[in-house]
C-alpha cells in the first residue's frame, strides 16, 4: 500500500514540481553568506514569502501536467502561441528590461520608472496615467485575459476588443516611455517601451488570429507560410512602415547635450547654420517624401508582384539610404566643427531615429529586391531538388518556411538589424558586440565545420585562434623576433598569412590524430590546445614574449590610393569590419557545405566505413575539415589581435575552447545559422544577466538555460535537419561497430 502510494506517478510528479520550485526559489536572489552565517541565502529563500510564490508556481505546473490531456484541445486553437509569446514579451519588458537609462529613475526598470513617473508633474498626462496606479500591469492583464477568454470561449467579439486593446496598449506603452525620455532629456538607449510595443502587437495579432480563425486547430507554420506567400516581400514592407513611421515622426535624430531632437527639431536646430543644402532639404521635406515614395512603390510592387516596380523600389530605397547617410554625415560634421557637445568628428551625437530611417529604407529596398528576383534562378534552386542534395544546406529557415522569398525576408531583417542597430546601442553593448559576440560567432562557424559537419570532437579549437593572433603579432612586428622590416604588414594584409598558418596547424594537429575517434580525439585535441597555450607562456627561445604577451599590435588600416580608412578605438568601426569578415566566411562556407567536400563530410559523419566504401578518401577529408575549420579562427585571431592591440596566453585558455563547443551544440550542430545563433545568444546572455541577477550567479543561470535547452530542444536552437533526425531515434548505431580500420591507419594491435 505504502509503496503503491509513493510509486504513483502523481506523487512523483508532485515531488518533482515541489523540488524544482524549491531549487528555483534558491536560485533567485543573492547567494550570499558571511563568515559567521553560511546559510543566509538559504534561509532567505526558505523563510521569506518567496518560497510560497514558487510553491504556487510548482503546484500550477503540477496541475498543468496532470490535466494536460484536458488542456491540449484548447492549446491547439489558433492564437494560443502568439498570445503566450506576446504575454511573455510584455512581461519581460516590464520586469527585466530598462525603461530609462537616467539615474534619476532608480534602476531604470519598469516598476521603478513607474513609481517615479506617477509622481512627476509636467510629464505628459497620458504617460503619467500609464505609469500610475499599476495601469501598465492592469492593461497587460486585461489584454491577455481578454485574448485568453476569447480563445477559451470562442467569442469573436471579445477577440476584436482584445486586438484593439493590444494595439492601443502597445502604442501607449511606447509613447509613454518616449514621453519619459523626452521629459528627462538625456540620451537614452533603453528598450523597454519598444519591446513592450512588439509584445502588445503580438498579443493583438493573437487576438486577430482568434477573431479570423476558421478552424479549431492552429497550424502556426502553415499560417506563417501563407502569410509570407500571400504577397512576397509584404512583411518587409510592413516592417519598413512601422520602423519608418517611428523614425520620421517620433524618434530622436540628434541629441546634443540634454535634448532629444526629433526630425523637425533637428531641422530647426540646423536652420540657417550653413548646413549643406541637400542635407537641409532632406531634414526639411525630402526625407518624408523619400520615405513615402519608397514605401508606396515597395507596397505596390509587392501587392502587384510587379518586377519592374520591385527594381524601382529597390533603387529608390538604396538612393534614400545613401541620402540619409550623407545627411547624417553632413549634419554631424557641421555639429562637430561647431563643437556641439564636445563632438570631435562626424557620426557623433546621432539619435536612433536616423539609423531607424536607414533601416526602414534598407528593408523597403529589400522588399523591392524580393519582388524583383521572384521566380528567378535563386528561387528555383531553393524549391527544385538540387543536384547534390546529400548535404545541400542546413538552412532551416528556408525549410520551415517554404514560401517563395521567405528566406530572403529573414535575411534582410537580420542584415538590417546587424547594420543599423549597433550604432544606436550603448558603448557597452557595442564593445560586447565586437569583442564577445562577433568574434565567437566567427569561431563557432569554424568549429561547426569540424564538430558539426565532419563529426570530429575538437576541444582545443582556441589554439588556432591563438596561432592566428600570434601570427598577426609576429607579422606586424609586435613580438621580440621581428620579420625583416620590409615585410611588416598591416593587420588586414596579415589575414591570408594567418589563414595559411592556421591551415598548416590544422593539418599538423589532424595528421597524427586521424586514426583516433570520438573521446580519444577529444582528449588529444584538448592536449593540443594546452600545448599551444603553455608554449606561448613558457616562451621558448624568446619567440612569444612569455606571459607578458605581445603588445603594440597596430590597428587595421586600408590605404589604397585615395581610399584611406584607419581603425581606431571606436568599437563600431570594428563591428562593420567584423560583419564584412563574417559575411564573406558565411558565403564561402555555405558553398562548401553543398560541395562534394561537404557531402563527403556528411558521409564520414554518418558512417565512416560506408564512406570509405563509396570511395571517399577519409584521411584527406578529415584533414581538410581540421584545416578549413582552423582557418576561420585564423581570421578571428587577426581581428582580435589588431583590435585589442595586445595579447597574452591568458586569452587562450581551455575554458574558451569548451565554450565554443557549447555554443555550437547549443545552436545546433551542423547548422550554419544555428552555430551563429548559438554563439550570439550564449555570449549575449551573460552580459544581459548582468542587470538581472547578482554577478556571481550568472554562470548558474546560464547553466540552467543550457540544461533546459538540452532537455527540451536537444537538437539546438536552429537544428540541422539531419541532426534533428538523429535525435528522433534514427540513430541506428552503426557507428558503434568500429569495424574496418585500415591497418595503415589503425592503432597497431587490435584485439
Amino acid at each position, binding site marked *: 500500500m505504502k509503496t503503491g502510494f509513493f510509486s504513483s506517478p502523481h506523487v512523483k510528479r508532485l515531488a518533482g514540481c515541489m523540488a524544482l520550485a524549491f531549487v528555483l526559489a534558491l536560485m533567485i536572489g543573492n547567494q550570499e553568506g558571511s563568515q559567521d552565517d553560511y546559510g543566509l541565502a538559504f534561509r532567505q529563500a526558505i523563510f521569506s514569502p518567496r518560497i510560497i510564490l514558487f510553491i504556487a508556481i510548482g503546484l500550477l505546473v503540477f496541475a498543468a501536467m496532470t490535466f494536460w490531456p484536458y488542456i491540449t484541445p484548447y492549446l491547439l486553437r489558433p492564437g494560443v502561441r502568439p498570445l503566450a509569446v506576446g504575454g511573455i514579451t510584455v512581461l519581460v519588458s516590464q520586469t527585466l528590461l530598462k525603461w530609462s537609462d537616467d539615474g534619476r529613475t532608480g534602476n531604470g526598470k519598469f516598476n521603478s520608472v513607474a513609481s517615479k513617473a506617477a509622481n512627476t508633474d509636467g510629464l505628459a498626462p497620458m504617460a503619467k496615467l500609464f505609469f500610475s496606479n499599476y495601469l501598465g500591469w492592469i492593461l497587460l492583464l486585461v489584454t491577455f485575459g481578454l485574448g485568453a477568454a476569447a480563445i477559451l470561449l470562442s467569442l469573436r467579439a471579445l477577440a476584436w476588443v482584445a486586438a484593439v486593446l493590444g494595439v492601443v496598449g502597445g502604442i501607449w506603452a511606447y509613447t509613454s516611455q518616449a514621453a519619459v525620455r523626452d521629459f528627462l532629456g538625456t540620451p537614452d538607449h533603453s528598450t523597454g517601451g519598444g519591446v513592450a510595443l512588439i509584445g502588445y502587437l503580438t498579443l493583438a495579432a493573437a487576438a486577430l488570429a482568434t477573431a479570423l480563425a476558421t478552424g479549431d486547430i492552429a497550424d502556426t507554420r502553415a499560417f506563417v507560410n501563407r502569410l509570407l506567400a500571400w504577397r512576397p516581400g509584404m512583411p518587409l514592407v510592413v516592417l519598413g512602415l512601422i520602423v519608418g513611421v517611428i523614425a520620421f515622426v517620433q524618434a530622436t535624430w540628434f541629441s546634443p547635450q540634454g535634448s532629444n531632437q526629433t526630425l523637425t527639431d533637428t531641422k530647426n536646430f540646423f536652420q540657417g547654420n550653413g548646413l549643406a543644402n541637400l542635407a537641409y532639404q532632406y531634414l526639411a521635406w525630402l526625407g518624408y517624401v523619400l520615405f513615402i515614395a519608397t514605401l508606396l512603390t515597395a507596397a505596390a510592387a509587392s501587392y502587384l508582384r510587379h518586377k519592374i516596380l520591385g527594381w524601382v523600389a529597390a533603387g529608390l530605397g538604396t538612393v534614400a539610404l545613401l541620402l540619409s547617410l550623407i545627411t547624417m554625415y553632413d549634419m554631424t560634421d557641421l555639429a562637430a566643427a561647431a563643437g556641439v557637445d564636445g563632438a570631435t568628428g562626424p557620426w557623433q551625437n546621432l539619435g536612433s531615429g536616423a539609423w531607424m530611417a536607414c533601416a526602414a529604407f534598407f528593408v523597403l529596398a529589400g522588399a523591392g529586391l524580393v519582388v524583383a528576383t521572384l521566380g528567378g534562378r535563386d528561387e528555383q534552386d531553393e524549391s527544385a531538388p538540387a543536384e547534390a542534395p546529400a548535404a545541400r544546406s542546413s538552412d532551416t529557415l528556408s525549410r520551415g518556411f517554404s514560401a517563395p522569398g521567405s528566406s530572403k525576408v529573414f535575411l534582410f531583417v537580420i542584415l538590417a538589424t546587424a547594420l543599423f542597430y549597433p550604432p544606436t546601442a550603448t558603448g557597452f553593448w557595442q564593445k560586447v558586440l565586437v569583442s564577445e559576440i562577433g568574434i565567437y560567432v566567427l569561431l563557432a562557424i569554424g568549429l561547426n565545420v569540424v564538430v558539426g559537419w565532419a563529426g570530429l570532437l575538437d576541444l582545443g579549437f582556441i589554439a588556432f585562434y591563438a596561432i592566428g593572433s600570434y601570427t598577426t603579432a609576429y607579422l606586424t612586428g609586435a613580438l621580440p623576433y621581428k620579420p625583416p622590416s620590409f615585410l611588416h604588414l598591416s593587420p588586414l594584409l596579415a589575414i591570408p598569412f594567418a589563414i595559411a598558418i592556421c591551415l598548416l596547424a590544422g593539418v599538423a594537429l589532424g595528421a597524427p590524430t586521424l586514426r583516433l575517434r570520438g573521446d580519444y580525439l577529444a582528449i588529444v585535441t584538448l592536449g593540443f590546445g594546452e600545448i599551444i597555450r603553455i608554449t606561448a607562456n613558457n616562451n621558448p627561445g624568446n619567440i612569444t614574449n612569455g606571459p607578458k604577451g605581445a603588445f603594440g599590435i597596430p590597428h587595421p588600416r586600408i590605404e589604397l590610393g585615395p581610399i584611406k580608412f584607419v581603425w581606431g578605438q571606436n568599437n563600431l568601426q570594428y563591428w562593420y569590419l567584423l560583419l564584412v569578415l563574417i559575411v564573406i566566411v558565411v558565403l564561402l562556407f555555405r558553398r562548401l557545405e553543398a560541395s562534394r567536400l561537404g557531402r563527403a563530410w*556528411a558521409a564520414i559523419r*554518418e*558512417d565512416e566505413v*560506408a564512406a570509405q566504401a*563509396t570511395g571517399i578518401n577519409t584521411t584527406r577529408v578529415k584533414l581538410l575539415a581540421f584545416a578549413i575549420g582552423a582557418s576561420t579562427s585564423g581570421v578571428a585571431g587577426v581581428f582580435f589581435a589588431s583590435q585589442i592591440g595586445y595579447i597574452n596566453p591568458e586569452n587562450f585558455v581551455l575554458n574558451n575552447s569548451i565554450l565554443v563547443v557549447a555554443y555550437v551544440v547549443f545552436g545546433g550542430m551542423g547548422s550554419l545559422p544555428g552555430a551563429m545563433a548559438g554563439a550570439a545568444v550564449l555570449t549575449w546572455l551573460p552580459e544581459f544577466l548582468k542587470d538581472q541577477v547578482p554577478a556571481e550567479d550568472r554562470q548558474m543561470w546560464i547553466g540552467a538555460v543550457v540544461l533546459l535547452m538540452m532537455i527540451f530542444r536537444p537538437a539546438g536552437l536552429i537544428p540541422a535537419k539531419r541532426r534533428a*533526425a538523429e535525435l528522433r531515434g*534514427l540513430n541506428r548505431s*552503426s557507428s558503434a561497430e568500429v569495424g*574496418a580500420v585500415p591497418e595503415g591507419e589503425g592503432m597497431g594491435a587490435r584485439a
Partner: protein
Amino acid sequence: MSLLEVDGIEVRYGAIKALKGVSFEVNEGEIVALLGANGAGKTTTQKTVSGMLRPSLGEIRYDGKRIDGTPAHELISLGICHVPEGRHVFPRMTVNENLEMGAFRFKRPDDKLQAHVLDLFPRLRERIKQQAGTLSGGEQQMLAIGRALMGKPRLLLLDEPSMGLAPLIVKQIFDIVREINNDGVTVLLVEQNASQALALANRGYVLETGEIVLTGTGRELLADDRVRAAYLGEEIAS
C-alpha cells in the same frame, strides 16, 4: 588472364596472423564464393582486396596490375566496389542521397544507371525519399548493394549479404546478385550461408583459420562431405 589474382597474401592484426598465405583467383564474369566459419578470415580477405587492409606479404593483381596496398578510394576508380559487412548505409540520408553517394567518384550521378538500379530493387524506388535508417534490414542491404552499383563496378565485393535476413529476402537478394552478374559484373561473395552461396557461385573457396583448405566449382563443393558436415550441418555417415 583472370580479373583478380590473389597470391599468397598474409594479413596481420598486430601480433595475430589472420591470413596465412591465401591464394585464389576470380575470372571475369564469374561469381566466386568465399566460405568459412567465423574467424576463418573471409572478411579480412575481402577487405584486403578492397584496399581497406594492407597485406604484409603476398601480391594482389587486378587486371594484371598490382593493387595490394592501394587505398580503397583509388581502387573504386578502378571499378572495385565493396559492400561492407553489416550493411552500413548512411542512416540519416535518404535512399536517393545514399545512391548518389555511391556515385561519389563521378562528377555527377548517372541517371540511367540509377534508374536501372531502382529497376533491380523496386522496393528502393518506393522508399526513395525515406531516410535510410528507417528501412528494414533487407531494404538496407538492398540499398547497400544498389549504392555500390552506382559506382559502376567491374568487380563487386559482397560481404555476407544474407546476414540476419529472413530466408525469403535472402533468396531475393541472391536472385538480384545473379542478375547483376548477368549484366557483366564479376562478383566475389563472402558467405556463411553455404548452400545458397554455392548454388549461386560458379566456383568456391573454403577458408579455415586463415588458409584455403578446399576449392572447386559450386556443385563440387556442395557435394563435398566436409563442406556438408561443417557448413550445412548434415550428419555424415563415417
